[in-house]
């Protein structure tokens, strides 16, 4: 199936979202809550595009809009740019402590306003952290409360028995809103203290014991038998490949 996007004709699979098709074709649509690992969430509305199909033009969220017939898409129009500017303005005022949002605020040329700035906040409620935690199979955090009080938290704001301290949430957070304190062999995240395991090769603390135990319980033990940090694991694999190549008679 064909789709026209910003004047270019590209091939789409039926049911694929506009966002996926565009990214495959190398066309970038701005988004805050989209991650290719998770697909569209439809939270941030930054990826709004104009869709023309059957003589009707409307604005849709490209990360959740499946293409099921031939459509013409424009990723940038004055109306869309205004929506994006408004979203950035509101999110920056919600999370003024975030450098990331501050940069966006300036690059989108948002105008000064008298909106209340939520000082000290960095979270923009994109919920990538919640998705990451869910993908880990842990789901220790979720959006709590509603409206302007909405925030990401563990149940009852206590150390969650489910949390394994993997830090996937903080890793994926675009604004650095999730606090991780690492001191010596300890990591503190979501009000919970974790003991760290050292890399067997370089001795650097690289993962929490709880995380390794969790992985061992879910994966083949051999996979995590060696406790190596990502750097040392890469070196290990390179060494293996090299030895294997050397063993081949014709190389």
């Amino acid at each position, binding site marked *: 199936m064909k789709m026209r996007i910003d004047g270019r004709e590209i091939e789409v699979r039926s049911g694929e979202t506009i966002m996926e098709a565009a990214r495959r074709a190398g066309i970038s649509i701005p988004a805050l809550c989209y991650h290719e690992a998770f697909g569209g969430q439809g939270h941030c509305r930054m990826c709004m595009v104009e869709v023309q199909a059957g003589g009707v033009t409307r604005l849709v969220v490209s990360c959740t809009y499946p293409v099921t017939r031939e459509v013409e898409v424009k990723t940038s129009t004055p109306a869309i740019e205004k929506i994006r500017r408004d979203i950035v303005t509101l999110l920056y005022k919600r999370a003024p402590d975030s450098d990331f949002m501050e940069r966006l605020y300036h690059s989108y040329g948002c105008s000064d306003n008298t909106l209340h700035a939520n000082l000290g906040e960095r979270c923009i409620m994109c919920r990538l952290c919640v998705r990451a935690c*869910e993908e880990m199979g*842990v*789901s*220790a*955090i*979720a*959006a*709590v*409360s*509603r409206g302007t009080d909405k925030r990401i938290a*563990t*149940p*009852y704001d206590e150390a*969650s028995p*489910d949390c394994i301290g993997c830090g996937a949430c903080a890793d994926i957070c675009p604004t650095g809103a999730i606090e991780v304190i690492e001191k010596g062999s300890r990591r503190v995240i979501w009000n919970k203290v974790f003991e760290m395991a050292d890399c067997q090769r370089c001795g650097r603390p690289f993962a929490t014991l709880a995380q390794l135990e969790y992985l061992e319980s879910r994966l083949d033990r051999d996979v995590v038998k060696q406790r190596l940090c990502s750097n040392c694991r890469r070196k290990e694999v390179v060494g293996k490949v090299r030895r294997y190549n050397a063993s081949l008679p014709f190389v």
Partner: protein
Amino acid sequence: MATNGNQLETEEQFQEIITRYPTEQRYIMPIMHDLRNRYHYLPRKALEMAAAHLQVPLSQVYSMATFYKAFSLIPRGRVRLKTCDGTTCHIKGSQTIIEEVYKNLGIRPGETTPDREFSLETVNCIGACAIAPALIVNDKVYGKVTAASLKTIIREYGGRENE
């Protein structure tokens, strides 16, 4: 053991409510409704047991419990006062009622007396504008409430005055 009205809050009771439903995610809401109807709030232990029974992460159950205004995570009283704070009631003096409740019982909206006898919350328009300002006490509606009639109502439900 904590009590709420005549309802004992025991794990057996929670279990009895929760296991009426099969292990499926979609029964989170019905279970929370049943818990609310019996206890007028969602006991923490019950939510934990519900999450375990439905095989849903506790974080998700907690997320839903905090999303809806109909659910409270802190215990409500035996007598639950709801003052209407819709436009009409607001103009007709609902703030005075809220103030009077505080004077009589020492609780603000969202609070419960330490003996778990009375609790107060404000609600948006209940559609009783003709008899504003309105007050609902355990599902019974009282209209044209004044400081004096509020005292009578509180006494009617067994409350002692604070003065």
